[in-house]
Every structure is written in structure tokens, then in C-alpha cells.
């Protein structure tokens, strides 16, 4: 079942950039302003996403979150991100990655973009999680190879830290 590919490595970067992000949308019966605080204020973020948080909501500011594990054998997971864009009340962007190598998403490696738009007196929340290592699974020339190397380097670095 060998099929010679007509595509080659030249387009690998473009293909990788196109790798599909995770996209989630939800309607919330609260104003964008109210929802926004749940991403930028630690006492609110810990009500839905993390058990502890250190947030400095401005570009380049820390966005650290501690996530409890699903069971006794795993976690806690340390999300060490950075705010990229903070535009209340409609947009907040932060990097997303964990110091725990077993998560497979090292710090700085992926990005979460949240957009909040008014809708029916409430908010339409759109969350886009892009640049995931797993996003490069498509069978194209360069992405698979590049992703493996990146992942391995990140794991090795994280283990040296530990």
C-alpha cells in the first residue's frame, strides 16, 4: 500500500500552520464584562478552571494555574502560561503549557484565544486552542517529523528541570 506522494516538504510550514485548532463555543447568560473577569482575576478563575492561580493580566504577564489531577495517581498539573493580549471585555489570549511532561503540552507551546461577544443580553464565548502538538498529526511531509522532535526536546528539557 505504498503511495508515492506528489507533495513534498516545501509546504510543510504552511501545512503545519493550518493544523486544526480546538474550537469551542458556548452561550452564557452573563455580560461579557462579567465573564471576562473569570479569565483575569485569580479568585474567579479558581471557581471554574484551576485550584490555584497567579495572574498578571497584561501582555507578557504571568498566567499560572494549578490544576488538580483527575485521580490520586495524577496531578497536580502546573500550567505556566503568559498573557499575550488582554482587551476587556471582548478578548483575552494566553499561552498554555504544563511543566508536567506527561501532559504533552510544554509551556509556551500552545495558545488559548478567548473572544466574548454580546448575544441576546448575554455572551457568546468562543475559545480557540491552537498550536497543539497533537494538531500536527496530519500526514504531511514535515509536520509529523518536526512535531516529534519538538515534543522530544520539550520532554527532555522538562525532565532536566524536575
Amino acid at each position, binding site marked *: 500500500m*505504498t503511495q508515492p506522494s506528489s507533495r513534498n516538504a516545501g509546504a510543510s510550514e504552511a501545512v503545519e500552520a493550518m493544523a486544526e485548532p*480546538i474550537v469551542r463555543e458556548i452561550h452564557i447568560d452573563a455580560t461579557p464584562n462579567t465573564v471576562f473577569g473569570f479569565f483575569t482575576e485569580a479568585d474567579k478563575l479558581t471557581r471554574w*478552571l484551576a485550584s490555584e492561580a497567579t495572574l498578571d493580566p497584561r501582555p507578557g504577564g504571568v498566567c499560572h494555574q494549578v490544576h488538580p489531577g483527575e485521580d490520586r495517581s495524577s496531578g497536580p498539573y502546573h500550567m505556566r502560561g503568559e498573557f499575550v493580549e488582554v482587551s*476587556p471585555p471582548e478578548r483575552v489570549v494566553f499561552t498554555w503549557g504544563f511543566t508536567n*511532561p506527561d501532559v504533552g503540552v510544554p509551556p509556551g507551546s500552545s495558545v488559548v484565544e478567548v473572544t466574548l461577544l454580546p448575544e441576546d443580553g448575554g*455572551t457568546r464565548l468562543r475559545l480557540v486552542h491552537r498550536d*497543539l502538538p497533537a494538531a500536527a498529526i496530519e500526514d504531511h511531509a514535515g509536520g509529523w517529523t518536526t512535531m516529534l522532535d519538538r515534543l522530544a526536546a520539550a520532554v527532555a528539557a522538562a525532565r532536566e528541570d524536575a
Partner: protein
Amino acid sequence: MQAVLDAVVEPRRREILRLVRRDELAAGAIAANFGDVSRPAISQHLRVLRDAGLLVERRAGTRRLYRARPEGFGELRAFLEEFWDTRLEALRHEAEREQRSKDRDTTEQPERRSQRGGRGNG
């Protein structure tokens, strides 16, 4: 995910994944690419990759054939999709509760309405 990460940390295992990314290859053909590695060592690498779900093994007579299984990485994606669904549902619940509380404050004590908006934004 631990097995996946362990599997790809070893450079020879990454090389094996590249070899079988498009072509299904027999163990012998894979081993032939590694002059400096013993056949049992290659078998061990193949086993680690297979157990991590990154390699599919198929028997054809006495031969074992291998090809890459990139879906192995898709498990992380599935995990994150479920993670965000669960978390966003929790966010909806909390944000709506917060909104009701704000609205109640506003109705009962309109003069305090602007208190929360008083933070400076440096």
C-alpha cells in the same frame, strides 16, 4: 500520555516512526536501517512504540509488519476537547451566578453600582 512521551524521547524510536510513516515495513527492513543497533534492541523499540499506540503491528505469515499510527497523538486532542467542554460548562454556571448576584446588588442598592468598576487599569 506518559507512554507516548516516553516512546518519542528515544531518537531511534523517532527514526522508526519516520520510516514507517507512509510505508508498512517488516521488522527486518526496519532493522536494516540501523547498522549499529542489535536486532533485539530494535524489537524492543518496536514493542515500546506499539504499546504506546503509535505503531500498528500486523502479522503476515512469519513476518511482522509495522506502520505508524499518528492517531496515537489524537488522544491528547480528545482529552483537551473534553477538558474544555467540562471547564466551560463550569464557567457558564459560575459566571451566571456572578451575574445574578451583581444584578441583585444593582437592584437593591443602585448607588453601589459603580463600586466594582473602580479598579485602575495601569
